[in-house]
């Protein structure tokens, strides 16, 4: 068989062998898993299988017109608009709306529905449309909807997904808050391409600043509608009525009506009108307070079903034959022995070779029975990486033009001190504990895939494109997922499972092995950063030139005051597949900038905190620096050998962070231990303080790995440390005493918090190591093999 043959070997169908699909014994107990894993009570309000069958796929002209509401900007005026990272924007444009308004109540039952219309560019980019490839035939302005049924149950539909960041809970809190209902009345239907409106994806810390206000506006509109209903019934003015605890009451007469009573027998659908006021944070009642994770009990009892836990009837288990190295092409594959095995399905489609079988051992045996020859191409190793990135970088494309103000030459000429340094940041893996996984099921030419992805609609598009079927025949459902950290934007496992299931004519589950995770996923980009700066006699920055090769533009702008700047991101051809990661390049750029600021402070003989403050006017960043420093007790005097203290901070995606670290260097072994971390975070009004604290502390613990020891090693197109035994992630013993101070700015709309708290720790630790030893480390990870105390470059 030649390499470019595209052959679908349907072993069972073509050879007349017995059906390989698993016996039907699991059918009864497993059937419920075919729906979106039921949230408590959610099955009472909708049956996703029934919805799938009932939904018309295309949109009528009539309903399109209905959807074209005119809405003004949806973004709070003070909200900083983050630029999506370039690899996030590579996701294909997609416009989607399956549910016609007139069919909505058939599915949802009687009640009151509010459709959020995304008319402004930014919200539309998030959830309704995109600038490129605009498809005029599809409505693109619905971004979420909300329904109140005649039991008073509020169901919210959003394309966002829950991956451990607790957005299911915080979005529900915002709705409960705005609608004046208890949190327990709110059900969230998330990340299901057949049920929820199009959403670009859950990334970029966008759910809280963009989705939450949308849902609040929908809830606020629903509340107004309920008030109007009650007012009409009581022949009074809505302004005299009060909404609270799921009821409308008339203080004058003492009459009350529950939302359930008001929704009874109604089929009221409203577009979200303009300019609905959102309850200010100072008046929040449900939001602004800690609320436990929704359905938490299901997680401590093992009952929650993640994608790998789904077991539909007749399920087969799939595995892919992986190439021996990146970019290898298949020369030949002898499939005969595997094909001859009973119950085994083998697929070869171009270079894709995979098997499916009803049991673990059968899959392993079939895969090892395939003899394949691959052609590999020479590739660079991790040792040669950074010169390679610089050499293979480009500049000049519009979006990467240098940002320039003033004149670097003039700035340097006026400086008393000059400094120039370069920093490197290694590729690291997300290593989500739930590996990429998917269950695919074909039924009557339609494909349903359950998969843990941050971009259900993006994966729907990938599936439609790869399998050459219309998008409306593909449904992607995202069960609440075992973490992602930016690593689950693509649908690799979904494509593999779908292709196998297509051939097998049974549902197929693919769960990537840890080694596959470490090899065939994508990585946080490695990068090289070069900085040049000048300092005046009085410790002011006179020039700032900053070049980032490959790792990205997030957090690349300096928050410090400097008139003469040249800042540029240079895209490079990466030897490894790379993509999004928690905080994106903000970690790399902050590591370089905040280490360099520390070096400058040393040159100018100024305390590192004082030096930053001297060059900083942003009041929010100043506030977190002051808070972290005060709580930590900055400046601290060393009381023992090997002790050191460091500080770093920054702003990204409208979140402000400052982090202090205390480290201890073992004088014999050179091992570095982080002893204490104090971090202050401010992201506007806090929606869920306990959830935020969990995110902030969690981000810092995750950051320990990238700061100290995580690095992907590769040679000849292979990852050399593709196992937890060789790729060290933070464990209990690595975790320092760690405290977080959260500043609650009720006067500022909330920003996302899943990413930015990660950026301060690496430079704080690097600066502390310098403080302890005089050794300046300029590469992440800082001490994968401990510190060489003989070396000194101070």
């Amino acid at each position, binding site marked *: 068989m030649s390499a470019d043959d595209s052959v679908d070997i349907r072993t069972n169908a073509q050879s007349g062998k017995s059906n390989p699909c698993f016996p039907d014994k699991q059918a009864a107990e497993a059937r419920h898993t075919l729906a979106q894993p039921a949230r408590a009570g959610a099955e009472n309000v909708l049956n996703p299988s029934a919805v799938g069958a009932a939904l018309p796929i295309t949109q009528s002209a009539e309903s399109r017109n209905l959807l074209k509401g005119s809405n003004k900007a949806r973004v709070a005026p003070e909200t900083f608009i983050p630029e999506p990272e370039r690899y996030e924007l590579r996701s294909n444009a997609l416009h989607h709306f399956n549910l016609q308004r007139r069919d909505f109540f058939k599915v949802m039952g009687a009640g009151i529905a509010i459709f959020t219309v995304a008319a402004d560019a930014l919200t539309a980019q998030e959830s309704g449309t995109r600038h490129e490839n605009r498809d005029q035939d599809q409505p693109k302005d619905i971004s979420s909807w909300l329904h109140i049924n005649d039991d008073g149950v509020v169901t919210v539909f959003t394309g966002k997904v829950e991956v451990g*960041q607790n957005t299911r809970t915080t979005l529900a809190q915002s709705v409960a808050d705005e609608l004046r209902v208890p949190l327990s009345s709110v059900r969230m239907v998330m990340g299901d391409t057949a049920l929820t409106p199009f959403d670009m994806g859950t990334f970029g810390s966008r759910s809280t600043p963009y989705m939450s206000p949308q849902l609040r506006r929908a809830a606020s509109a629903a509340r107004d509608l309920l008030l109007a209903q009650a007012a009409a019934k009581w022949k009074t003015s809505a302004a005299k009525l009060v909404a609270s605890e799921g009821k409308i009451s008339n203080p004058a007469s003492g009459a009350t009506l529950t939302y359930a009573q008001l929704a009874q027998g109604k089929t009221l659908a409203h577009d979200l009108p303009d300019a609905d006021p959102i309850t200010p944070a100072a008046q929040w009642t449900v939001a602004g307070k800690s609320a436990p994770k929704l359905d938490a009990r299901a997680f401590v009892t093992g009952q929650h079903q993640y994608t790998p836990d789904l077991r539909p009837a007749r399920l087969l288990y799939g595995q892919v034959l992986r190439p021996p190295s990146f970019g290898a092409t298949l020369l030949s594959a002898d499939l005969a022995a595997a094909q001859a095995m009973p119950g085994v399905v083998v697929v070869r489609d171009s270079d894709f070779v995979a098997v499916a079988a009803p049991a673990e051992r059968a899959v392993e045996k079939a895969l090892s029975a395939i003899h394949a020859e691959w052609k590999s191409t020479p590739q660079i190793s991790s040792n040669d990486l950074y010169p390679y990135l610089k050499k293979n970088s480009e500049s000049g494309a519009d979006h990467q033009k240098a940002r320039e103000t003033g004149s670097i030459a003039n700035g340097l000429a006026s400086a008393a001190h000059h400094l120039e340094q370069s920093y490197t940041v290694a590729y690291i893996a997300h290593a*989500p504990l739930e590996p990429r996984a998917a269950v695919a099921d074909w039924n009557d030419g339609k494909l349903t895939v359950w998969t843990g992805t941050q971009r259900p609609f993006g994966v729907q598009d990938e599936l439609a494109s790869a399998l050459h079927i219309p998008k409306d025949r593909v449904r992607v459902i995202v069960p609440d*997922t075992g973490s992602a950290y930016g690593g689950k934007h693509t649908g690799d496992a979904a494509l593999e499972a779908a292709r196998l299931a297509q051939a097998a004519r049974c549902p197929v589950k693919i769960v990537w092995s840890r080694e596959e995770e470490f090899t065939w996923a994508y990585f946080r980009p490695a990068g090289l950063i070069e900085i040049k700066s000048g300092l005046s006699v009085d410790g002011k920055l006179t020039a700032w030139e900053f070049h980032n090769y490959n790792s990205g533009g997030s957090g690349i702008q300096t928050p410090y005051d400097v008139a003469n700047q040249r800042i540029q991101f240079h895209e490079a051809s990466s030897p490894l597949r790379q993509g999004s990661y928690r905080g994106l390049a903000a970690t790399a750029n902050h590591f370089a900038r905040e280490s360099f600021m520390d070096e400058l402070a040393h040159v100018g003989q100024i305390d590192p905190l004082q030096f930053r403050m001297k060059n900083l006017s942003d009041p929010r960043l100043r506030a977190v620096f002051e808070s972290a420093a005060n709580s930590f007790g900055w400046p601290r005097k060393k009381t023992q050998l090997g002790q050191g203290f460091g500080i770093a901070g920054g702003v990204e995606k409208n979140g402000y962070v400052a982090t202090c670290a205390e480290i201890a260097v073992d004088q014999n072994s050179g091992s570095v231990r982080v002893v204490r971390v104090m971090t202050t975070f401010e992201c506007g009004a806090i929606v869920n303080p306990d959830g935020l604290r969990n995110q902030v502390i969690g*981000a810092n613990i995750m950051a320990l790995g990238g700061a100290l020891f995580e690095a992907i090693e590769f040679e000849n197109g292979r990852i050399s440390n593709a196992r937890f035994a060789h790729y060290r*992630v933070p464990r209990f013993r690595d975790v320092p005493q760690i405290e977080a101070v959260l500043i609650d700015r009720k006067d500022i709309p909330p920003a996302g918090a899943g990413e930015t708290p990660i950026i301060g720790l690496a430079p704080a630790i690097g600066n502390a190591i310098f403080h302890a030893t005089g050794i300046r480390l300029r590469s992440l990870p800082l001490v994968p093999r401990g510190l060489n105390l003989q070396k000194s470059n101070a």
Partner: protein
Amino acid sequence: MAGPLHAQINGKSRTFESDPETTLLFALREELGLTGTKYGCGEGQCGACTILLNGAPRRSCQLSVADAAGKSIVTIEGFEQNGQLHPVQQAFLDQGAFQCAYCTSGMIVSSVALLQKNANPNEAEIVQALQGNICRCGTHPRIVAAVRQAAKAMHGRNHERR
């Protein structure tokens, strides 16, 4: 090996039909539907698949069905009794000791095993017992707090019984 293999699982006698060389993890999850026990690495490094085998914490990805034959197994599904959470489960809930919660089953099983051996562990002993369990979300301090809460609760309960 002749005939199907049996084991006592969460207090009930169960029969495995899987090939005896099948990993215990796969058989528990896919054959018996006990999917609370998770796959995280397949190399015994992450602890997500931890079960109790004759009372001791073991990595089910490193065991075969044959290894488990005739033994007693407790999985995360076996801790809740008559709708009452195990004190360790309750403590994880109270402390909010999870984010994505994929590691939670393994953390709870490892913690139960620790507390069976050592009713009042100090922080270093908790860290030691959980060192083989990976949490990628960084919930470690809350997990340690949960184990401490559970130890207190179980201690109190034992006292009440006496």
